[in-house]
């Protein structure tokens, strides 16, 4: 079983993690800097009328996070499907 990461692994999990962090943290910072509402829901008054909306649609943020999780899930499947690489053996040799 291979426990080290090569360039492909790092690229894919980096992409997955980046999508999660962009959806949660980066766009969260953008929302705070944009002013109220600071959360991910529209601001309403006592009558229930929307008085301010978010800059970024929360559906966009959740979609980014879900996409990141899907990338990580697919990477896990890819790792599972790989043949065992013994010490001293290259991946190409293992696939052969």
């Amino acid at each position: 079983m291979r426990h080290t990461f090569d360039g492909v692994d790092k690229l894919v999990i980096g992409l997955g993690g980046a999508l999660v962090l962009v959806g949660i943290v980066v766009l969260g910072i953008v929302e705070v800097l944009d002013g109220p509402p600071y959360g991910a829901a529209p601001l309403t008054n006592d009558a229930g009328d929307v008085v301010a909306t978010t800059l970024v649609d929360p559906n966009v943020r959740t979609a980014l996070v879900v996409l990141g999780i899907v990338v990580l899930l697919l990477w896990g499947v890819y790792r599972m499907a790989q043949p065992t690489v013994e010490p001293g053996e290259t991946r190409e040799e293992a696939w052969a």
Partner: protein
Amino acid sequence: MATHTANPFSEGFTLELSGPLVGYWLGLLRVVTGWWFFHAGVTKLIEDGLNYAYGPVFLKGMAGTSLGPVATFLGTDLAWLVKPGVPLFETLIGLGLLLGVLTRLAAVGGAFFMTLFWVGNADFAHGVVNSDLMGLLLFGTMIVFAAGRYFGLDAYIEATDFVKQRPRLRYVLG
């Protein structure tokens, strides 16, 4: 790969705690958890400054809970500290976790907050295991696995001579 005939899953499902995936995931968890608290704190600072009046009200409302005496003491006698303390400490805890600085100390603070939220917020309509308890366990995870050592500044701080000469500082770093 040799196959263990008695338990064919014994090798295929091995979790190596030193593996790169563990560091990756702990780093990701730390940053997201840090943002959670930083956002909660900094938005209170923007809206209420250092006078978060709901803090003492929340604590006094915990009178009938298992932490009742402690919470009411905090909400009544230490209200002067709670009002600025809630936004300030939430922000600092979040910042510590985001950057991975004094991670364990920050996570202890986060666990303290989550304990109060868990006991004070919930009506436990769906049982005692709820999202507040999960948040509390998340901070415990940060402490146990020293999450600041993975993509955090604590990894560099712990490598300094100052910390090497005072290894007990790693109880609050890491």
